[in-house]
């Protein structure tokens, strides 16, 4: 190899070299496309919510507050999304003209099927995470109205308050995590500051968030 190189002219050597770098660049570009776009997309799976629930209808048109469905219970636990029974407090029969509502009444309220267990939670956390809404709600009482509440909640959640159809839910095929799931570093960022959200109790100790 060394001997042969010695016999080639500088021009051909340069040519060879550039051709070689071309292969490198092609490889690089292909891999980058694969690694940044193709493969990550292959890992993703999109899912639809069981019912095209409209926050706009409930909040803006019907004037409901957030707390009517999402509230802290007396023991400090958070209700999350409402159960079929809670929905049925109003929707015991079809109230409007939306076909989705009619379907909800037909398929859930009348059959007793549980919407809460089917609803896809965008911010879904795995079982090993302990998250207390109450402990994060320090300043919530001072918030006024749905707009301000939504702004506060959307520090972590998707801001769904102004959506007419639920956003697409995207999940990783391997981990099963939602695209919007806050990962540990996201939690740790606030927990590292002792006065985040006016609370001095949030440390980054493992047991603060894991169960």
């Amino acid at each position: 190899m060394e001997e042969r190189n010695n016999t080639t002219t500088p021009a051909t050597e340069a040519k060879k070299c550039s051709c070689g770098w071309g292969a490198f660049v092609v490889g690089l570009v292909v891999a980058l496309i694969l690694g940044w776009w193709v493969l990550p997309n292959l890992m993703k799976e999109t899912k639809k919510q069981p019912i095209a629930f409209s926050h706009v209808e409930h909040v803006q048109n019907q004037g409901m507050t957030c707390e009517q469905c999402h509230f802290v219970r007396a023991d400090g636990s958070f209700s999350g999304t409402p159960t079929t029974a809670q929905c049925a407090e109003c929707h015991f029969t079809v109230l409007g003209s939306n076909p989705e509502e009619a379907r909800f009444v037909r398929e859930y309220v009348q059959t007793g099927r549980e919407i809460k267990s089917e609803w896809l939670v965008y911010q879904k956390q795995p079982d090993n995470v302990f998250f207390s809404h109450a402990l994060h709600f320090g300043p919530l009482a001072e918030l006024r109205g749905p707009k301000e509440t939504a702004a506060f909640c959307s520090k972590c959640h998707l801001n769904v308050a102004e959506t007419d159809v639920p956003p697409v839910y995207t999940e990783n095929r391997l981990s099963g995590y939602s695209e919007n799931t806050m990962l540990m570093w996201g939690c740790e960022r606030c927990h590292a500051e002792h006065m985040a959200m006016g609370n001095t109790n949030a440390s980054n100790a493992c047991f603060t968030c894991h169960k």
Partner: protein
Amino acid sequence: MSSEVKQFKIRWGMVIDIDKCTGCGACMVACQAENNVAPAVDGSNKLRSLNWLTVFRLSNHKPFPDHEVAYLPRPCMQCGKPSCVAVCPVIATDKREEGGIVSQIPPRCIGCRYCMASCPYHARYFNWYDPKWPGDLAQALTPDVSTRMRGVVEKCSFCHHRFMKAQEAAVAAGRDPMDLPDGAYITACTEACPNGAITFGDLNNPAHKVHELIKSPYAFRLLERLGTDPQVYYISKREWVRREGDNYLEHEKTGEATKQG
């Protein structure tokens, strides 16, 4: 290797009166149910049955009829100077949070079992297989403690989720979550013990019963001489029981040697 004992404002601790324990096992059942410990088909192999809390039977080693028996429930000691925390290569176990409970996070654990080797109390258990809840048993899982997977170590957490819940309830009620009244947070075993042998509370808080109990002349801790500084105390009026709590040379007396530890 952290050689210093960490200081906490709150130190959750347990006082177990051995003279009151009769070894019925209600604490062990409650512990398994509360913490989603999977049942074992063959629980008679004690070296392979995962139990955060185990009741040992103690003997005064005298022949019949002078023999005496006692039972000693052994949760995790939540050591002030834990031998396990220093050795874990991936910080799956730590003692950092206010309250001084030694955390064990199975999702972080890589399953090297070094912590098990380090713990003289055998408080740590390994998931040799994936946990199984045959039939419909999984329906009875509580929402409080995540299920584990094979290949990770787990141990008693002093029902840490109950601490979180107590804090949550305190915040919801507008009270200080860092100043819980006595009894606002107790472990499942404390709650289940029919004989009231277990008392739980903040060892540092004079308003909590345990604060006084640990000053009893009959109080002792397991293997104090090793310097692990456990947050679990035992009480027995029987000298032989206290002597079973640590290693003593023939001429040594119980009260003296422990002080130097």
